[in-house]
């Protein structure tokens, strides 16, 4: 098995704890997502490679990573046409059109996710309730619109918030963090990207935390442990082709992505801005590389670390 293949399948394995936790809370919904994204993404990839007259390569595992991240980003049990559009956008548009593995400018999973997020906002906002009597919305959405309650009151009144970042979501995010730690121990991800992202997100949440008033944007723990924060931090922005190569560039990239995420979460029109933030960070990466004099050859490197 090639170097890339070993890395990618390790990444898939590192996603499993998070997958298990989310399935514990939501039942088979995520399994359904995965059962559709995986074959669809594989089929799209094969079709794209065939049309470009390039060899089809399933062993390298990169399509599997994209399919898994996509399945975990979408709400559980999402309708099949949403999954089809998301997989098509991810694999055909963001991956095959750009020349396949290693040449993509944008993270494929996030391109697919952002396309369905703006195309089918209702389906993407429909989360099944975790607890009896709760509406189906994520903690970030609930918190954003708590109608005049202070942060402390909102947490006391609504058990969906859990302890810090959303009932169930706290554990899912911690499980993703565990997977990220594993990848870090194996030296498969650039830790500066993750650190830049998490530190900036915390700092911004602290700076704009007004003690939890009714208009505040929420404290660091809420932002770290809710929504897709740690999934994105450990598995999405660490995609080595789409983040800068030089060390200062990696810090800057992480900080930039976190800043956009926080701006959209605190003041924007979408509940979680991570997908958009990642796309903007990816778009800035070649410029950041230019500024920090990273050699152009990196994109063609076989071993993505």
């Amino acid at each position, binding site marked *: 098995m090639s170097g890339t293949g070993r890395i990618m399948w390790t990444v898939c394995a590192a996603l499993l704890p998070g997958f298990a936790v989310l399935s514990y809370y939501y039942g088979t919904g995520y399994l359904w997502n995965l059962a559709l994204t995986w074959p669809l993404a594989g089929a799209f990839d094969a079709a794209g490679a065939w049309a470009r007259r390039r060899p089809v390569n399933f062993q390298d595992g990169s399509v599997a990573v994209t399919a898994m991240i996509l399945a975990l980003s979408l709400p559980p049990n999402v309708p099949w046409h949403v999954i089809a559009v998301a997989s098509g956008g991810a694999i055909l548009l963001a991956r095959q059109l750009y020349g396949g593995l290693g040449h993509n400018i944008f993270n494929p999973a996030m391109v697919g996710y952002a396309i369905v997020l*703006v*195309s*089918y*906002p*209702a*389906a993407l*906002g*429909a989360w099944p309730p975790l607890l009896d009597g709760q*509406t189906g*919305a994520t903690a970030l*959405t609930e918190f*954003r*619109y708590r109608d005049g309650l202070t942060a402390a009151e909102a947490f006391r009144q609504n058990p969906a918030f859990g302890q810090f970042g959303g009932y169930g979501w706290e554990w899912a995010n911690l499980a993703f963090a565990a997977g990220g730690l594993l990848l870090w121990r194996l030296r498969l991800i650039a830790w500066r990207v993750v650190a830049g992202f998490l530190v900036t997100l915390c700092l911004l949440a602290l700076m704009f935390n007004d003690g939890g008033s009714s208009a505040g944007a929420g404290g660091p723990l809420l932002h770290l442990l809710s929504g897709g924060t740690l999934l994105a931090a450990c598995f999405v922005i660490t995609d080595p082709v789409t983040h800068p190569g030089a060390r200062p560039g990696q810090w800057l990239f992480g900080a930039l992505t976190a800043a956009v995420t926080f701006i959209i979460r605190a003041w*924007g*029109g*979408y509940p979680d801005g991570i997908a958009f933030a990642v796309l903007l960070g990816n778009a800035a990466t070649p410029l950041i590389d230019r500024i920090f004099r990273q050699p152009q050859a990196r994109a063609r490197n076989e071993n993505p670390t």
Partner: protein
Amino acid sequence: MRTLLSLGGISLVCALLLAGVQALTEEAIDRNRTAHAWRTAFEVTGETFDTSNLKWRDEQVQLPNGTRLKRFATPGYAGDIHLLAAFSQSGQLLGVRAIRHQETPGLGDFIDSGKSPWMLRFSQSPPLAVDAITGATITSEAVKRGVQRMIEAEAE
């Protein structure tokens, strides 16, 4: 000299052309602009009326036939949703429309009366009894609460 003359000549031709068409279309354009500014008001009251003597004061305006128009902003999911409501002389709510908003594209569309009949329900039932739109609970609740507050303010 010749350069200046021809430049002047061309300018003159253009100016004459423009002035002519301007004179021809001025009236129609004026009429369209006024009608546009009052379009929502005409829609919500179901009639067109002479707008030349009307002035908004404290976000309210009284029409010649006694109907009162009220503007009100309610915090939606993304920024304020600006509403326009019409009340009859006896304080009865005649109808509500959204003037402008920044709700998520696709998700918040239903508050535009041109795209969905949802806003029309407020003239038939009490605002808090109107069903929320699935998937866009926040926007619907914001509008419902906004209408409720306008009715409460009207009752005082």
